[in-house]
């Protein structure tokens, strides 16, 4: 299906808006083409392609809103969908938290689209699969992987004069390599907006090496250990922490950011002073759209600086209640790193555990942000600056807040899942039991 240009999208949206008779109207138009290949047991399993495009109209009378959607964009269809949204709005209950649509906004340029990714073919996907499968088979290893690519656009308009448009491409790749004797497993993940940065063979080699290195893991006692967390491991815990940066739930007293006086921890130091975390939609390594689905501009925003909470997310309603400017939720996360490579971090460790990734992370206690989960696909014991041997996987029970207070060293940053996260060395990370899983 068509990926509309800015002008084409504007023409459709303006036409649709011209049919509106409501007090307020907001229309979003989105479309995507995506393809994928999946493989396992050193052979391809499933593969597919899908295309979608949708126009969503939200019409409002006073505080009553209705939403309707359509995937055909001729004039008659556009008028029909606008009328339908208006009928639904008249039937809806009032939403006391309804906010008027935003007026015109200024958006920074976006860096999310790359022609190279938009042009990916089924043959390219098959080649990605063989770049994993062939070297795996040559080393008595079995590959299971997934490659997914997409090209998309999003646009919006409203009755207060706002118009926004963005085009994006992206690709995600993960592969798990397991030794054929079932005793070793390795994994790697890559994601980019620009597929030319992606090297399937090099990534697959890392996972194969880890699988071979992790064979015949030994059991060591659970307890508190110094850990080196690869960015894939810490990213999941940090993402969970980030999703709790809501001013409203903090102010309501049901978030780890709540304070006994009825307020929140804005301005308080909550983690080690070397922790600085921000979001930036224009960062060249992790670009995102420069506006969100509500039409709010997304800008570089500091969340934790030198360990101190600098911002919490305020939706427009809550910002108005509190008399502050709205702060939208971030679209990416960037954590300041250091110069140390993974090798440097290992060499500076007298006794510790290297963790490739964490798995099945679930909240245990939202009060303390305690999470549980397990290590997976490459866990190694370090002694006197060297990897000594693989160890059996551990279950952990740990809070990212405690973890970031126990920071020893920050290493180099790596892109992972759309974020930029450094290697980290953490002391006293809590492992509570052993797992036999490979």
């Amino acid at each position, binding site marked *: 299906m068509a990926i509309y240009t800015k002008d084409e999208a504007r023409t459709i949206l303006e036409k649709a808006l011209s049919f509106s008779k409501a007090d307020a109207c907001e229309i979003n138009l989105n479309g995507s083409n995506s393809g994928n290949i999946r493989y396992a047991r050193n052979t391809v399993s499933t593969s597919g392609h899908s295309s979608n495009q949708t126009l969503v109209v939200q019409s409002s009378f006073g505080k009553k809103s209705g939403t309707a959607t*359509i995937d055909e964009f001729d004039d008659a269809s556009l008028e029909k969908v606008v009328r339908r949204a208006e009928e639904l709005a008249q039937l809806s209950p009032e939403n006391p938290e309804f906010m008027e649509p935003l007026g015109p906004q200024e958006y920074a340029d976006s860096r999310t689209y790359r022609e190279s990714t938009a042009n990916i073919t089924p043959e390219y996907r098959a080649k990605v699969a063989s770049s994993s499968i062939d070297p795996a088979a040559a080393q008595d290893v079995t590959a299971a992987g997934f490659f997914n690519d997409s090209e998309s656009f999003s646009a919006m308009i409203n009755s207060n004069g706002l118009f926004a448009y963005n085009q994006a491409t992206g690709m995600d790749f993960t592969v798990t390599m397991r030794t054929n004797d079932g005793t070793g497993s390795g994994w790697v993940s890559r994601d980019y907006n620009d597929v030319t940065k992606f090297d399937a063979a090099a990534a697959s080699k890392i996972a194969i090496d880890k699988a071979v290195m992790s064979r015949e893991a030994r059991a060591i006692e659970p307890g508190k250990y110094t850990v080196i967390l690869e960015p894939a491991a810490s990213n999941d815990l940090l993402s969970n922490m980030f999703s709790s940066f809501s001013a409203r739930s903090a102010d309501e007293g049901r978030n780890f950011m709540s304070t006994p006086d009825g307020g929140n921890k804005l301005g308080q130091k909550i983690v080690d002073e070397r922790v600085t975390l921000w979001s930036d939609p224009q960062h060249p390594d992790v670009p995102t759209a420069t506006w969100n689905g509500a039409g709010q501009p997304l800008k570089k925003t500091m969340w934790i600086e030198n360990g101190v909470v600098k911002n919490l997310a305020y939706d427009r309603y809550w910002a108005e209640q509190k008399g502050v400017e709205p702060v939208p939720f971030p679209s990416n996360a960037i954590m300041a790193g250091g110069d140390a490579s993974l090798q440097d971090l290992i060499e500076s460790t007298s006794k510790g555990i290297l963790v490739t990734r964490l798995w099945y992370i679930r909240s245990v206690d939202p009060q303390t942000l305690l999470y549980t989960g397990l290590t997976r696909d490459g866990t190694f014991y370090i002694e006197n600056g060297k990897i000594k041997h693989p160890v059996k996987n551990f279950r952990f029970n740990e809070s990212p807040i405690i973890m970031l207070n126990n920071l020893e060293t920050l290493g180099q940053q790596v892109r992972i899942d759309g974020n930029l996260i450094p290697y980290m060395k953490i002391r006293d990370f809590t492992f509570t039991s052993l797992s036999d899983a490979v």
Partner: protein
Amino acid sequence: MKRRNFVQYAGLGTGALLMPSLLMGREIPQEALLHPGMDNAVKKRLADVALNTAKSLGATYADARIGRYLNQYVFTREDKVQNVVNTESFGIGIRVIANGTWGFSSTNSVTEDGIKKATEQAVAIAKANSGIQKEPVVLAPVQTHGEVSWKTPITKDFREVPVSDKVDLLLSANAAAMENGASFVNSALFMVNEQKYFASTDGNYIDQDVHRIWPTFGVTAIDRQAGKFKSRQAMSAPMGMGFEYMDGLDSEKLEGPAGIKLYRNSYDIVEDAVLAAQQAQQMLTAKSVEAGKYDLVLEPNHLGLTIHESVGHPLELDRVLGYEANYAGTSFATLDKWKSGDFKYGSDIVNLVADKTQPGSLGAVGYDDEGVKTKKWDLVRNGILTNYQAIRDQVHMIDQNESHGCCYAQSWDDVQFQRMPNVSLEPGTEKYGIADMIRDVEKGIYIAGRGSYSIDQQRYNFQFGGTVFYEIRNGEVVGMLDDVAYQSNTQEFWNSCVKICDESDYRLFGSFFDGKGQPSQISAVSHGSSTSRFNDVNVINTGRTI
């Protein structure tokens, strides 16, 4: 992070639900839910276009699924309606085997031309991938049923119940919670209707109409001065039922220990909200558990999730064989253990059955998404591992020649694959109730409702929490506990099962949004059990200070 944000916006708390945006479909007015949709004769003609096109391009097998998926979701908090969402998604998915390789494509252009193009793409993908195919697809034979239909046995179609009635019901539950001391309450109703038409080159034309419902809420109590907050989730179960589940019939209620109310096939959301508000406040001052070994008495709406994670998933044959290695993982329940014929999965009283036919369950359908008539079969009998869950292209790998009928796709635009059937623990055969079980425990914990859950990628080591915890001392419940989680190993845990209550206590737990596969797809599945006792399980204290 985006999915988690949605969970936040829905206000039900982390872990309460996972709702993929793709399931939202396109939004439509309530009355459009009742539109009958495309006539079956037209669907048959269009499905034949896909099958004939595929065959003409050299495919040796093809199936077409024309699906209309209707969802209605209602979200409220305290005295406000946050959102009412009606969605419809309509299209066709075509799956083919060409050169011994699967290919799949889908389109929402359900016309002869659109279907031909999608079929051509499915065949092209299959042929493009056949070069790296090392194991040609082998399909187990399927019975030819001809033109047949099946419908979830419901008595109240959610589509015919006015939205205002649904909103009023949720707001009454919210008001009841607030009047009983809740600081906040979020509630939601999820209602789903899948209208699925399946056709294949085996000569099957199957029309099915599937209904599911899930009412749920989260009640939060806050002690601001102490800086504490606690949440109590609903004790409802998602069900394969119509809106009649919301009737709150007294005949379907059970009394648990410590005044707990439990629900079978009918749910009283207002009554549960009152109790939730009271329990959430009790949690603020509940005793923190002392870590150690306890005998656990697990209520079905809790035990269902343990069954799901430690029995349902490890016995999926695609996991065992390695097809899910890159995402959900593999399984400790390897083929050699099954072939030995004496692998002790659990104690002698543990009987676990797979069932795609159980009335009221989320997994019940007449035929699966590759046209296989559904059935019930043993997974574990008298504690011994006896079988897996497998579909047409897998059963030959375990020397069987009949699919188990558990193939499913979440929508027309996703490829179908092996999904978990309902997996349930059979009740005990002798008369024995929950009061009898509590009386027999010296040092234990009664756990009801689902909580935090985590398990490794081969399903050995798990840690589960719950909704409410009560301490049992010398045969009596002595008070509420906090900070409880138990850690165990699947085989050790099921072998520590010493007693199972009789069928009068049997109820279904449900998972409405179970995720699997890449790209990830959700499915809904139930797990039945009676309250069961597990001896000497390791309990940890999860309390921390930050």
